[in-house]
């Protein structure tokens, strides 16, 4: 049951370039989406979120784009820095009923080379 899919297990990018991490979902009831970053031996850290009423949300170097018709979201990191090297998890939730319980993807390991 993969309601949230991150089809690229890893991504390698040069420092200063753009990193684009992709995520697809199947459940049309999802209406709140999040990205978490995880370093080894640490728990996931919230990065950025977007509600389904928007198609873009920006926070500094991080921008999340949502394409509801395609059930696709992406995280853009510009410019990428070596400290961004981590596993990035996409998560989606359904807020109706006040749940907000996220369903996570398997993660994409981002490596940013100096």
């Amino acid at each position, binding site marked *: 049951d993969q309601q949230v899919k991150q089809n690229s297990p890893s991504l390698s990018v040069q420092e200063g370039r753009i990193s684009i991490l992709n995520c697809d979902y199947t459940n049309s009831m999802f209406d709140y989406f999040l990205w978490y970053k995880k370093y080894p*031996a*640490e728990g996931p850290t919230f990065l950025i979120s977007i509600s389904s009423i928007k198609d873009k949300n920006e926070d500094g170097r991080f921008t999340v784009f949502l394409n509801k018709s395609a059930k696709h979201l992406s995280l853009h990191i510009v410019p990428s820095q070596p400290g961004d090297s981590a596993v990035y*998890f996409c998560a989606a939730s359904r807020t109706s009923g*006040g*749940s907000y319980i996220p369903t996570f993807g398997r993660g994409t390991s981002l490596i940013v080379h100096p």
Partner: protein
Amino acid sequence: EPEVTQTPSHQVTQMGQEVILRCVPISNHLYFYWYRQILGQKVEFLVSFYNNEISEKSEIFDDQFSVERPDGSNFTLKIRSTKLEDSAMYFCASTLSLGEQYFGPGTRLTVT
């Protein structure tokens, strides 16, 4: 900056034994969660807790699991009789209002 803490960082136990994983959520948070991540797999929701009761649980959270908030600060996950397949990272999370959650560093549970 306040953070969620979890103890122990690593727990090794024998199959059939009971384990208690402990979490101290951020002090003014109201919603509490447990997740697990089996090695190489995705983070999976186990249970959420609000107002001193379970608000949601997944099918993973069967009768072998229980949660408690015994005082104003701790939030525990108990596994009554551990199985090999319970080996995983267990993450506690908390939040003040529904939305992004703050995760602890995790407890690695190894069942032998």
